[in-house]
């Protein structure tokens, strides 16, 4: 028995092992919600038992044993045929478990993430599912990040988990090299969680970004041979390194070109650079790696003062050919304005004016306003900046756009 306090021990196990235990439990039955229930009961039993009897030597194995018993009981109580089959497989599992040491609980978290990011699961629910199943975040926390009320998010999570069971989505890890799009689904979901945290400047946002980085590290650890997870983790570290420099002491928005590089987190940048190097030696160059390379180029330019915009445009060319994404095209136009001039940049984004995906996309109107101002189209710039202000959820960015617009008026 260890002498740590029982509450703290349960908390520590919860943080470190929740996803691992759930993935193992859910993989047995393909029933994520049932696994969650069993695990919740096991944690409740632990909080009741450990203060009295002490914390067991292997808390994780203890929780797994209790949860498995609950899970088996629940299935025995049910009489459907599907559950009958699951019951038979559970009996087999238990025989297997007898032969297996409790210290070696197989890590099936990557398989659980693949199930959550399966092509048949609503793309909008993939990130929330991973946050709940792997990290054990509550529907309330996840709902806050995605601007959905807790009860609604709870219902959507339940439906998505039911769907995993109904579709019979297996808990196996697809051949990542043969099916790179399956891995992309997982990476996209994690990055979506990071992006939510990044755009939200409040502390809760920062917490979500930190959780996403934790997930990114987990995928890198579980799939060490795949280069794209490293590219994505590098991408998140590059962004994370600049968090403190994005606002001045008064809370005003500071664009990348004006940021005080002394405020950048050098350790995070070093980790990002190392991951990106590692990824590019390991295999094919994917979307995340190129996006990370672009971030690396921005960091190099700001730290050295050496113009490297043409290289950034070239990287965007590759990324655009790969994705055809209007957001990539937009970012390329911004780089093009620096490498060449605003006229060329505006011409390169002409087709986006009729793209419905851009109509409510704030960065599109902000860039358009910025470029129109540079070529002296004051009226056009004013309209575009007004729309960008109206589409912004962030008051600091709204103020910054408003200031740009005021300078426009004073030129006249």
């Amino acid at each position, binding site marked *: 028995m260890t002498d740590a306090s029982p509450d703290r021990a349960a908390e520590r196990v919860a943080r470190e092992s929740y996803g691992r235990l759930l993935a193992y439990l859910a993989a047995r039955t393909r029933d994520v919600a049932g696994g969650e229930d069993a695990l919740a009961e096991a944690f409740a039993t632990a909080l009741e038992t450990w203060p009295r009897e002490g914390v067991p030597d292997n808390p994780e194995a203890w929780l797994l044993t209790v949860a498995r018993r609950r899970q088996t009981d629940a299935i025995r109580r049910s009489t459907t045929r599907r559950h009958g089959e699951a019951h038979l497989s559970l009996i087999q599992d238990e025989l297997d478990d007898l032969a297996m040491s409790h210290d070696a609980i197989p890590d099936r978290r990557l398989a659980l993430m693949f199930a959550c990011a399966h092509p048949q699961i609503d793309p909008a629910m993939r990130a929330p599912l991973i946050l709940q199943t792997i990290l054990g975040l509550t529907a309330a926390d996840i709902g806050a990040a995605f*601007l*959905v009320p807790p009860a609604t998010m709870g219902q959507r999570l339940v439906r998505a988990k039911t769907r995993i069971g109904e579709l019979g989505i297996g808990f196996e890890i697809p051949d990542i090299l043969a099916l790179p799009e399956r891995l992309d689904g997982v990476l996209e979901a994690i990055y979506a969680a990071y992006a939510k945290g990044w755009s939200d400047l409040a502390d809760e946002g920062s917490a979500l970004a930190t959780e996403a980085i934790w997930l990114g590290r987990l995928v890198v650890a579980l799939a060490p041979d795949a280069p794209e997870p490293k590219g994505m983790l590098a991408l998140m570290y590059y962004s994370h390194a600049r968090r403190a420099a994005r606002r001045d002491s008064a809370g005003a928005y500071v664009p990348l070109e004006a940021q005080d590089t002394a405020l950048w987190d050098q350790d995070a940048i070093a980790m990002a650079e190392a991951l990106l190097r590692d990824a590019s030696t390991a295999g094919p160059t994917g979307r995340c790696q190129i996006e990370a390379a672009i971030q690396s180029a921005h960091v190099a330019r700001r730290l050295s003062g050496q113009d490297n915009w043409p290289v950034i445009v070239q990287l965007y060319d590759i990324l655009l050919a790969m994705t055809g994404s209007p957001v990539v095209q937009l970012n390329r136009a911004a780089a093009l304005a620096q490498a060449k001039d605003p006229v060329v940049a505006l011409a390169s984004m002409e087709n986006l004016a009729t793209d419905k995906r851009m*109509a*409510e996309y704030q960065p599109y109107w902000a860039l358009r306003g910025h470029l129109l101002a540079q070529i002296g189209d004051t009226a056009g710039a004013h*309209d575009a900046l*007004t*729309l960008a*202000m*109206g*589409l*912004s*959820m962030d*008051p600091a960015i*709204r*103020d910054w756009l*408003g200031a740009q617009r005021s300078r426009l008026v004073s030129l006249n």
Partner: protein
Amino acid sequence: MRFLLMLYAEEQAGATIPPEDMAKAMDGMFAYQQALTKAGAFVSTSALGATTDARTLRMQGGDIHLVDGAFVNQGGTLNVQEGPYAETREQFGGLFVIDVADMDEAVKWAARCPAAQWGPIEIRPIVNTMSANEPAWCADGGFAPDAGQQPEP
């Protein structure tokens, strides 16, 4: 679907904002309205006067009966009070009516409203609207009688 965004704010705090800051806030509100319009989601907006100028009409006492298809109060007295219906920390100060696909979209637009920075916004689905300036509007299954069905005064 149409939604009503009810903007609440602390009226007292609002009254002490310096004019130049208020102008900036109104600029933000105007930009928001432009963005709604561009997205085809804008229907209407109103700013409300102070609650100190409000009156609340309330029937006190009596019982409600259904008489000849109309609800009438019997035995109650109609009173007028100064001020709003409820004493709350924040007061209902303005509104937007927007037309968007669903509640998730409505919440997204409410989050873009500058007023979300200084007070709560209640978002309610609208069942139907009758207006002096446009044809009656009705959500699926909602009730919007046309002028011909309205009883003679």
